[in-house]
């Protein structure tokens, strides 16, 4: 296992560095805002005031509050210090609530939605793709073009369509929110049922998109593997097809995992926009309202959390891949 430990160490090291850089980017980019953001923000409080010194006092107060009166490297140190304490700043729009508090309530919803959705979609998609690759025939003529088209519909597109069909036309599923508007979050069966109901549309939008994309890829991969030399050789040695199929799918799944690693960022992005369609109380909706309201600390906080999430998920997947592909361990050992 020595090779694996090396692999693990390298991967973790790499992700730590990436995280640090993401942190810096997250801090730096929004602060490159041209013009004076403070005036914009404080405009609400300034309205009605005509006395110049009073206006200036308000602006100065806001500046101080949001730490914008110090030079940028000092700001960065303050930023890091606060980060280590779990303080992501104070939200402009939800003033005086802290960003971490505003996000905390949303993160749970997003993870509860996206993690299972992406997983289920990936598994189902690859399963379907594998079957399609093996069986061919009807699948190829009828279902393939359909899936091909579906995989080109963006996540939010699928979300809107499902909303229309099931929420409006058929009226069987709720169209917004995470739970009924009249309910208070509690562990009652009623509440739980409502949550599950509201969960359906966002969940299935993400799942369907993933299935579309994965199925196509897995099918190609399966066909490619099924035509490879080792399959032919194994057959001519008398090994049963049933066992050969196991080889093939094991080998075909590996690039699919790699594909997931590379596309996870994009997937999450699409899923977040899908969340906004349903006003699902997750990070997506939070971020949308933050952007609309120009709530920079909140935007910054959201992007940071999302980045951490994606990096973590990627790391987990990379470790998983290292465990599944024996070649990784073997190659590392020299």
């Amino acid at each position, binding site marked *: 296992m020595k090779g694996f430990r090396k692999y693990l160490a390298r991967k973790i090291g790499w992700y730590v560095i990436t995280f640090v850089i993401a942190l810096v980017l997250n801090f730096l980019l929004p602060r490159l805002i041209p013009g004076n953001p403070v005036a914009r923000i404080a405009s609400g409080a300034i309205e009605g005031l005509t006395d110049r010194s009073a206006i200036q006092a308000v602006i100065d107060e806001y500046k101080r509050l949001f730490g914008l009166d110090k030079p940028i490297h000092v700001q960065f140190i303050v930023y890091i210090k606060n980060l280590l304490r779990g303080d992501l700043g104070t939200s402009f729009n939800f003033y005086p609530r802290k960003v971490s508090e505003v996000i905390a309530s949303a993160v749970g919803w997003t993870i509860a939605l996206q993690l299972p959705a992406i997983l289920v979609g990936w598994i189902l998609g690859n399963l379907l793709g594998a079957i399609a690759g093996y069986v061919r025939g009807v699948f190829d003529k009828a279902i393939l073009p359909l899936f091909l088209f579906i995989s080109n519909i963006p996540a939010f597109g699928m979300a809107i369509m499902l909303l229309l069909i099931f929420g409006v036309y058929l009226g069987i599923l709720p169209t917004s929110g995470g739970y009924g508007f009249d309910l208070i979050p509690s562990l009652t069966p009623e509440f739980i049922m409502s949550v599950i109901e509201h969960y359906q549309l966002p969940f299935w939008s993400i799942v369907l998109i993933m299935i579309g994309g994965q199925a196509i890829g897995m099918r190609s991969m399966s066909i490619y593997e099924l035509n490879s030399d080792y399959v032919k050789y194994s057959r001519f040695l008398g*090994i049963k097809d049933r066992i050969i199929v196991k080889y093939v799918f094991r080998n075909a799944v590996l690039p699919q995992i790699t594909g997931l690693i590379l596309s996870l960022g994009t997937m999450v992005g699409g899923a977040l926009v899908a969340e906004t369609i349903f006003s699902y109380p997750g990070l997506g909706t939070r971020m949308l309202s933050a952007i609309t309201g120009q709530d920079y600390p909140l935007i910054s906080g959201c992007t940071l959390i999302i980045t951490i999430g994606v990096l973590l998920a990627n790391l987990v997947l990379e470790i998983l891949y290292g465990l599944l592909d024996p070649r990784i361990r*073997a190659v590392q050992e020299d």
Partner: protein
Amino acid sequence: MGKTILKVKDLRTKYVTRYKESVYAVDGVSLELEEGKSLGIAGESGCGKSTLALSLMGYYFTPLHYISGTIEIDGKIVTDMKPDDVRKNILGTEIAYIPQAAMNALNPTQKIINFIEDVVRAHYPKKSKKDIYDLACERFESLNLSREILGKYPVELSGGMKQRTVIAISTILSPKVLIADEPTSALDVSSQKVVIKMLKNLMEREIVKSMIFITHELPLLYNVTDDIMVMYAGQIVEKGTAEEVVFDPLHPYSKALMNSMIVPEAGMKDVKLTPIPGVPPSLKNPPPGCRFAERCKHASSTCKTEKIPEVYTEDGRMYRCLLTRDQLKGGKE
């Protein structure tokens, strides 16, 4: 004359391309292989020799299709057997195949020993892991392969090692007939020597009883096999002992083949190389007459239209031509 271990009569098979066209790659091949003897099959790329190798196994699946003919291995008529029967009792145990380019023949994500377990268990499902491991160790070491290879993945082995591992795996159940499809083509010269030595070793120790060695390098066969068959456009055009075919080829094609190759021997310095003009006919629509007629110096109009029979000489050789032996000998370039 020893026991005939492999008898093939008028075998015809085809493979179907992705564009649904049929390529009649093996179009009436007959051969007899005796126990303890080795047979070389030589021909240019595209003549159908690789398809022939696979066809001889008796196991057909898309895109390879059986048309007609019989294959008999050690008395068992394989072409009459059900596919699952062939898979269980013939493949690997009676006849085995070594693929070209062994680098890709091994599953990249499987340890060698695990693959061997699958191979053995496909025929002897009850064998225990330990027995299989012992068998593998013993066999590998007797073929000068370290037992450490068993615990490795293909990516950890060099090209030559992979080829030799594949040979060891193909013969692990001691099949009677071994078919080696261009086993040396993808290797450097020193590895080639090792592989040939290994194959000869297998025969000497009677791990396999007979061998068919397929290559496009005709001269190579002189040092390796007892007899040689020359294949052209899906048919066998000449048969004889290695000595006879290499030094006294009868068929115009065999002659041309020998003339177009460099054989490192004394007196070669002054010999001019002459490549064979033209290209082989397409096997999707084989011509009715002699398939070599387009490129043959002796060709006449009858050659192109009449079906050319196999001509057997008194000294046990065969060639496929309308001309007599003397006529062929006469026309030297």
